[in-house]
């Protein structure tokens, strides 16, 4: 799932787009939750890299294509969350805005303004699967491993994950 040590990192990172490195400063989970629940993933690079650099000017001038900006979204998410399977972090982030999830996390003492994005995701995952039946956990894992529409992680998607095993553990699939 995630590299647990990387999920703790509060250091800036750089993302290279069209041959140019852009620095991304640390921000707590709350800011990522807002960004990714406010706009589609394909807009993430525009918002994050454009905040404090000439990234948007380069896009407006045609030096960075939309496809390059779009593909930078998962790279940013991977670095910010510590999840190589960034789509799992993405799905957990999206789930954070649903129903009583945020309230339950706050009641457990996890404040998104105080933790890294990776910590938030691992805590949310733990909350979701603790005490769950094996079949429900497998179903949750299966749903978590579906990339967002329009994104294909390619080989990375198959790395170390057995969807048949997950499916076999689901009710009605045995």
């Amino acid at each position, binding site marked *: 799932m995630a590299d647990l040590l990387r999920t703790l990192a509060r250091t800036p990172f750089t993302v290279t787009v069209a041959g140019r490195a852009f620095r991304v400063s640390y921000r707590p989970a709350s800011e990522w939750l807002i960004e990714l629940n406010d706009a589609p993933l394909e807009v993430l690079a525009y918002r994050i890299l454009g905040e404090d650099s000439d990234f*948007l000017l380069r896009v*407006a001038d045609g030096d960075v294509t*939309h496809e390059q900006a779009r593909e930078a979204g998962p790279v940013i998410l991977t670095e910010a969350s510590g999840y190589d399977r960034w789509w799992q972090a993405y799905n957990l982030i999206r789930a954070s805005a649903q129903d009583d999830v945020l309230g339950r996390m706050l009641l457990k003492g996890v404040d998104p303004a105080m933790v890294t994005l990776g910590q938030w995701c691992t805590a949310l995952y733990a909350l979701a699967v603790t005490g769950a039946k094996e079949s429900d956990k497998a179903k949750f894992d299966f749903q978590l491993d579906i990339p967002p529409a329009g994104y294909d992680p390619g080989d990375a998607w198959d790395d170390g994950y057995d969807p048949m095993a997950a499916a076999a553990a689901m009710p009605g699939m045995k």
Partner: protein
Amino acid sequence: MTDDGNTPVRTYPMEISGYSFEARPLTKEQMMVVMSLGKNINAQGIRVMNRILQRSMGEKHWDAVTDMLVDGETTLVDVMGLLEKIAKAQQDDADNG
């Protein structure tokens, strides 16, 4: 209006504080930038807006609008709204085929 004398370029009639002009369409990249700028525009955002409007309006009209800004005849909020109006007109045009 044409790009090369042959290919017609769709333009959109726009108006800001009584000044009318024809806006050229934004590129997909510029549309995404407009979408990402949002309402809270910082200094970098103003530079980007400047660049995009300059291209869409053309130098002559952009000079006229910046003069209006300097003279207080229009506001930065109105200019930002103009960018959104161009993007919306273009999107509506695309939606209607």
